[in-house]
């Protein structure tokens, strides 16, 4: 469930002509305000930026950007970085981008950075729906004039490439049908390979990168039933390395994404992780998707609310933006 709170007075963009007209008027008003703020300097009215953008959903934000471009000849997001503090600016930028564009932006950034950014690629590939992942690939073509898989393949090697390229290229079946016999036999294959310490074996890769999420869930449940431990527990038994960590995270993302995101947030807030931008990324990418579930998981695991911890860990406009996005009261 999403945590985005859109004020009741803002109509959703829908079939009704009058509602469409109102939505358009709202976008025009928002674009004008933003233009005014920009002319005085982005840094002069962060509160207003937050109250406009943080309470608009993706369709509304797209409309605002469109109206802004038509009225003023340039993209709302251009030059944003020159004037806002880096964390706040990044949050506004990521939030305002259309979700598929955002993921394409994050993926492209990840291919240029160091190894910890393999996580970002895996996260995008595994937690988006098949349909949304394909929209990311389309947005990637449009924005970067190359394919996502070509960039990921070029910038990775060995086991990481073996895992990540098929992950970003997958177009998984999204139905709930499960083949129980297959789940049993593939659980067996996984267990065999893991016992042999063949962690990047083709069969493991095949199962994790091509099976539907429903089928994978069934397979991993059988694994647990048949072998007494969860697969991730078995994967922790060997000396740890980056590939194994990524493999376990992949499995988590495919089966329990809210747990994956909770951990990422927890480590980021406690400054234990190496992923400095995790907090901004998770909040902006999940606010419209499953933030409520993530908040529940966070509270369950940490006994304090995510809002409390974010408020304790961040400050200023950055804090206000994050809190607005995770649905904390009224920002």
């Amino acid at each position, binding site marked *: 469930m999403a945590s985005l709170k859109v004020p009741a007075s803002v109509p959703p963009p829908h079939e009704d002509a009058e509602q469409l007209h109102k939505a358009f008027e709202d976008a025009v008003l928002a674009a004008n305000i933003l233009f005014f703020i920009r002319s005085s300097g982005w840094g002069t009215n962060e509160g207003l930026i937050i109250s406009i953008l943080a309470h608009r959903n993706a369709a509304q934000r797209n409309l605002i950007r469109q109206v802004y471009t038509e009225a003023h000849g340039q993209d709302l997001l251009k030059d944003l970085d020159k004037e806002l503090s880096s964390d706040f600016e990044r949050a506004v930028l990521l939030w305002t981008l259309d979700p598929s564009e955002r993921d394409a932006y994050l993926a492209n950034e990840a291919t240029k950075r160091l190894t910890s950014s393999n996580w970002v690629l895996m996260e995008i590939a595994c937690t988006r729906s098949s349909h949304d992942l394909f929209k990311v690939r389309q947005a990637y073509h449009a924005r970067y004039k190359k394919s996502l898989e070509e960039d990921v393949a070029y910038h990775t090697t060995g086991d990481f*490439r073996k895992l990540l390229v*098929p992950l970003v290229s997958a177009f998984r079946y999204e139905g709930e049908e499960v083949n129980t016999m297959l789940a049993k036999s593939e659980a067996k294959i996984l267990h065999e390979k893991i016992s042999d310490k063949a962690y990047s074996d083709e069969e493991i890769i095949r199962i994790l990168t091509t099976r539907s999420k429903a089928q994978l869930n069934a397979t991993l449940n059988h694994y647990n039933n048949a072998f007494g431990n969860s697969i991730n527990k078995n994967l922790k038994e060997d000396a740890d390395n980056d590939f194994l960590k990524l493999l376990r995270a992949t499995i988590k993302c495919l089966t329990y994404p809210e747990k994956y995101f909770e951990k990422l947030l927890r480590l980021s807030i406690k400054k234990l992780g190496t992923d400095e931008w995790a907090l901004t990324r998770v909040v902006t990418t999940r606010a419209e998707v499953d933030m409520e579930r993530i908040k529940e998981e966070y509270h369950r695991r940490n006994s304090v609310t995510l809002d409390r911890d974010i408020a304790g860990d961040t400050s200023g406009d950055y804090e206000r933006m994050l809190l607005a996005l995770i649905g904390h009261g009224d920002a």
Partner: protein
Amino acid sequence: MSVHFERWNDHCVRLLKHEFVRFKNALVLWAMHPWERDARLVKEALKKGPQSYGVIVEIACTRSSEELLGARKAYHSLFDQSIEEDVATHIHGSERKLLVALVSAYRYEGPKVKEDAAKSEAKILANAIKNGLKKNPIEDEEVIRILSTRSKAHLKIVYKHYKEVSGNIIHEDLDVSDLILKETVECLCSPHAYFSKVLDEAMGSDSHKNTKKGLTRVIVTRADVDMKEIKEEYMNLFGVSLSKKIEEKANGNYRDFLVTLITRDN
């Protein structure tokens, strides 16, 4: 009084049956949406086994990115599985990695190319093919990366540089032992020549029945796409017009249907 009748020739009966089955198959394939066509062709190829894997290469490499995406969507609807999951499950040989990568591709389709990368990738391919005896190029990570992720425009530049580096056109350096790799390269770099060859082989008198199916498949799937270019290339390569060859080799309604399809643009 005895009644005589002239029994019909067994051979003729067989021919008639084959002609009708081919006609039926061609019509059914033609009636389907291109995405459904491609999805069903891949499924059939997987069931038939290694000698049909060339069809998977054909579909993955000659369709546009949007057409291949469409086939993948149709596959979900028709078979409750993803195309890559089925390909990965059914194929166990050395060609698996390449084929899974090819059906998963969503290539950039613009003109922008990277000249420097193309040059170095041509060298990578040349080396991999040269060292083919030590390590099978079809399983080489870099060969798979280049052939399954690069745009077709970029690959054209890679082939150009390959010719400069090795002296030959890339698929001439590959032989029948690397058939899947050879077909991949041909489909990506010269699809019309590839289709012409498939058509010609299909019409050979001693061809295997699977090869013969190439006639229906290529004509039906390309009639609305690039049949004009295929006809030109066929003439270039074999010195006869495709229509004439089909009229010579096929019979009855099947023949008429195929000829109608290929002359639609006249």
